[in-house]
């Protein structure tokens, strides 16, 4: 639907009267169509993607205007491989395995030779905890708390976010609304109807700049499990792919672009290695409250 409107808009760009018609149909409020995009690429072949700004006050979708989106973020090349690296990293890097299989040395007992070395016709063994025994120790078992922690390079993570946002935008699953805070209607039925009327799909993720939300959306979010709100810093590839529709507030859009462009154009290497050294003091200092004063952790 959005693409059809966009196509209509692009075809009508040549006639100024048609553009005026479009702006006159929007409900009087003027939304700045041409935002100042920071470090916009000079390439004339790169089109500036656009999105409608709409309102959450009514069930039906009312267009308030169009905004320009930054081409470096919302029109990158769809590198599915990089997105896949991000998704894999997200699902794997927090895994912990707490199993510890005891070795022969760590099992109790087993110090005595069970039977003489020769002349019994039995196997030559030295301990009942040898790995070939049932109830013996394990050779090459799973050892201790095992983690899969690693950090993807920043460049890959930033590009993964850009690819996910680009895909959502090109598939018409990215919507922009003027505000999310302090909405009037908190009735779940209203939000179900709204998502139904606007063809949002099964699940919706609202993203706002502020990390506390109040008003109608907060109540609806408590009642509906498939409708959730996230702050901008909580945005990630997995959620972008998991939810059918992403709804960004206007301030969240500004914030996402600002953060991603800052990271893209920052000074210093983009593939800076993650070093445990750098975070060790901070992590251990935070964990001091969890430590037992006398006993070391068991595992």
């Amino acid at each position, binding site marked *: 639907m959005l693409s059809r409107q966009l196509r209509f808009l692009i075809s009508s760009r040549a006639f100024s009267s048609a553009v005026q018609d479009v702006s006159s149909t929007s409900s009087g409020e003027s939304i700045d169509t041409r935002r100042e995009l920071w470090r916009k690429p000079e390439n004339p072949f790169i089109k500036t993607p656009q999105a409608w700004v709409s309102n959450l006050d009514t069930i039906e979708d009312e267009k308030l205007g169009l905004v320009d989106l930054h081409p470096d973020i919302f029109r990158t090349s769809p590198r599915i491989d990089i997105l896949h690296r991000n998704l894999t990293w997200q699902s794997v890097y927090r895994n912990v395995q707490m199993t510890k299989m005891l070795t022969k040395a760590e099992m109790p007992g087993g110090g005595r030779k069970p039977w003489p070395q020769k002349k019994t016709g039995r196997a030559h063994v030295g301990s009942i905890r040898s790995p070939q025994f049932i109830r013996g120790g394990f050779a090459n078992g799973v050892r201790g708390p095992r983690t899969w922690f690693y950090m993807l390079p920043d460049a890959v993570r930033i590009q993964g976010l850009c690819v996910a946002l680009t895909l959502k935008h090109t598939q018409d699953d990215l919507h922009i609304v003027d505000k999310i805070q302090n909405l009037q209607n908190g009735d779940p039925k209203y939000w179900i109807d709204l998502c139904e009327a606007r063809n949002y799909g099964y699940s919706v993720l609202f993203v706002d700049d502020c990390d506390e939300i109040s008003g109608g959306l907060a109540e609806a979010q408590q009642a509906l499990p498939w409708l959730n709100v996230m702050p901008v810093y909580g945005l990630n*590839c997995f959620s972008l792919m998991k939810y059918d529709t992403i709804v960004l507030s206007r301030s969240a859009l500004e914030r996402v672009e600002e953060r991603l462009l800052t990271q893209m154009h920052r000074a210093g290497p983009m593939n800076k290695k993650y070093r445990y050294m750098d975070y060790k003091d901070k992590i251990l200092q935070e*964990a001091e409250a969890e430590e037992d004063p006398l006993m070391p952790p068991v595992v």
Partner: protein
Amino acid sequence: MNSNSLSRFTSIVRTTSIRGFHDRSSVPRVVDDREKSSAKYNDAGYTFRYHQQGVDPLPRIPDCKVPVARPAYKVRDQWSDEAARFGQNDYIDLLGDGSVHPAQLQYHTPTWLRGFPGQHKANELIKLIHYRNLYDAKLKQNSPKRWHELRKRIKYLMMQHNYNKQDEIGRERNLGLWEEEPDYTYKDKSRRSFKDEIH
């Protein structure tokens, strides 16, 4: 005469070529039942089905009412509170104000492993050395048996990596646990000797 000898030969062949399980004992052992020494198992109840497609049904006792033991059916809610927010803070160092890193937020891991490179990068030896560096005094004081076991394990792994798995030794400086280059200017070698403890 000739046919008689031939038949005797074939009968010998037949008795010796009975297919049975591998049994290396050439001497009949003393057993509780004397039938056992000669009667060997040669059939496990398996029929070969080389040209038959599909999978055989699993063996079941007919008319048995006891249900087959199996893990309980678990309903996984993809939209529970945790699942709906899975991965929420993974990009917080890039999108946030830069004061928090995802490595700090691994609250489900033991404290000494938060942000520590995983075992596909840092192997068990390096992990145990890290544990020892943090908790050596506490272990020695309050849990000597575990201290002893830890030392034994580290010693074993040292030998393993020095003699059998030397390919993993050179990578330890690349992990970000220690400085890449050793401190060549450290000259105080007065206290070093061959009697030093090498774990």
